[in-house]
């Protein structure tokens, strides 16, 4: 345990002192997000497109409608309920306010009048800015404010912005690179006889490998945190699923690609052979596993390759957890395929890895 700690500290120290590696590990994915985010986001409006469907003909309802249209931050579109919800789904509305039939009657009878507000929860600004405004408007309206109740309702499906689609993919890609490039130091240390020198001490090889695995997992967590924070602060990319589940998939994904990296290091004798091998593994995954382009854009004959690549499943998994994108595969299949890759790569790596 003490040795593991010392090795870990040594790894971290070396990492922090290697400015270039530090930069590429953390800045590279952020660059991607910033550049793509700038390209994809067409500039946020200060006014919000709000849909309004008034299904009630009572004077109270008409009055409410008029007040809502006066709100400066709103650009109110009036339509029927189903059309407005459709517009919300396709991303043309930030929220839809429904004044249901019987609203005026309820108020008149002195009971509660319900107003339904649908909004897109992936857009955090909707929840944070829109709802308080609507609530304020409704509560400040009329003679009996307490009788009007706002019921925010989440839509089951919603349009995902390009940046929402991209960020979980970038996270998956960053972990993929972090994992497979773990092959490099191992190949270098074997070439420089560092592994042999360590072999001349009583240090157990399992301890040594374990320390690098823990080290990479720590970096993975750091990278993930940074990506999520930047995406959230700059582009309001939401986090909808469970943090716990996300952390689990980050660990599983990192382990999978680490074992793939170790497998590569088993077959590459020198740095010069390791590099092209890493590229051959990296690039198809980067471009074919739906990180940058939705898979629907890929030609059908590529489907088997796409379906075989672990990054496809990690990206899908992160998208589901983070932005609640429609699932390509169930969580079970995603975790299962990644786990399968992990086991296979690990077995091959253990079988073929040579320490000198």
């Amino acid at each position, binding site marked *: 345990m*003490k*040795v593991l700690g*010392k*090795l870990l500290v*040594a790894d971290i*120290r*070396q990492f922090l*002192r*290697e400015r270039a590696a530090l930069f590429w590990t953390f800045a590279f994915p952020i660059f991607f997000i910033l550049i793509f985010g700038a390209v994809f986001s067409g500039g946020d409006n200060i006014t919000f497109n709000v849909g309004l469907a008034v299904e009630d003909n009572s004077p109270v309802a008409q009055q409410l409608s008029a007040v809502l249209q006066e709100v400066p931050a709103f650009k109110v579109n009036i339509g029927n309920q189903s059309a407005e919800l459709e517009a919300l789904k396709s991303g043309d509305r930030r929220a839809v306010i429904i004044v249901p039939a019987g609203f005026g009657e309820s108020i008149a009878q002195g009971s509660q009048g319900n107003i339904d507000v649908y909004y897109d929860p992936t857009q955090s600004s909707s929840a944070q800015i829109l709802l308080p405004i609507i609530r304020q408007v409704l509560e400040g309206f009329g003679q009996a404010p307490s009788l009007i109740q706002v019921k925010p309702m989440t839509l089951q499906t919603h349009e995902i912005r390009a940046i929402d689609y991209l960020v979980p993919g970038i996270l998956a890609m960053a972990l993929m690179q972090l994992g497979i490039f773990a092959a490099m130091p191992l190949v270098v240390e074997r070439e*420089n*006889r*560092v592994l*042999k*020198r*360590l*072999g*001349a*001490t*009583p*240090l157990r090889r399992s301890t040594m490998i374990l320390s690098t695995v823990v080290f990479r997992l720590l970096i993975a967590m750091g990278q993930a945190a940074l990506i999520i924070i930047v995406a959230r602060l700059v582009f309001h990319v939401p986090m909808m699923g469970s943090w716990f589940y996300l952390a689990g998939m980050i660990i599983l994904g990192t382990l999978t690609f680490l074992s793939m990296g170790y497998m590569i290091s088993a077959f590459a004798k020198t740095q010069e052979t390791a590099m092209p091998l890493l590229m051959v593994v990296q690039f198809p995954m980067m471009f074919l596993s739906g990180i940058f382009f939705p898979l629907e854009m890929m030609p059908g004959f590529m489907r088997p390759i796409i379906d075989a690549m672990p990054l496809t499943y990690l990206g899908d998994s992160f998208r589901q957890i983070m932005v609640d994108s429609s699932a390509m595969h169930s969580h079970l299949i995603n975790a299962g395929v990644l786990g399968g890759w992990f086991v296979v790569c690990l077995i091959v790596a253990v079988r073929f890895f040579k320490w*000198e």
Partner: protein
Amino acid sequence: MSTVIEVDKLCKTYGDIKAVNNVSLTVVQGEIFGMLGPNGAGKTTTMEIVEGLRPADSGSVSVLGMDIKQRSRRIKASIGVQLQTTSLYPRLKVHEVLDLFGSFFPKALPYDELIKLVDLEDSRNKLCINLSGGQQQRLSIALALVNDPQILFLDEPTSGLDPQARHNIWDVIKLQREKGKTIFLTTHYMEEAERLCERVAIIDHGEIIATDRPDRLVSQHFNEEAIEFQLDRPPGDEVLRQLAGATNVVTENGKVTVYSGSVPATISALMEMAKQRDMKLTDLYVRRATLEDVFLKLTGRRIRD
């Protein structure tokens, strides 16, 4: 004195090449034992088998009375190993690397003591990547000393260093010898073998040709001394061999070495010959025979090609 390393009929083959061919040797406690030979002679392979880093094809190795095949891990805790490695952890500081390595062993010397042993006090807080070649080498010796080993294995400890740095390393090694450690080193430097080692095994093509004290190796093979000179038009070894007192002649790159049992007779005959044949004779000097001459005599070539 007790034997600490016993190697018996060791063999190791890579493809068609017999890297180590029937090597037997013993190292006794407290001595500096050197394996001398050209690059590719099998020094490193032999040493790494003894350290337990490579398996042998056949033969046996016992270190500190333990069989290397069975007690490798136990042996590793009692020996110190230095390999021909560049920097181990380029971005760790000197004291950090020593501290890290110490943690690999059940007990370790404090790093400040190690730093003092190899005279690296001024570089204590330097990153390894910023060390000079000689400092790197001293650090790697310090790493080999981290567990206060009984036997110190040094593979080409001064390879590629300038004379000043080489002498510094020799001082470090001698200090360890004074502290009672046994030192097993390899080298392709004649001077290093002659000045540092108490006993030397000469190895070539995987075989040990001779093992003894350096001075005895020389006196066994040479009663004569070496006369070296340059000739602008050398008449050929056959002619030079006719010189009075000459026992053998070797010419390499215009440099002639005449081994002679009677230096005055040979030199006056040489002068006479140069005058008669109008040869330009330069750089003449006489020296006693060295291990280099022994190697040349036994293998027919110089140690560095």
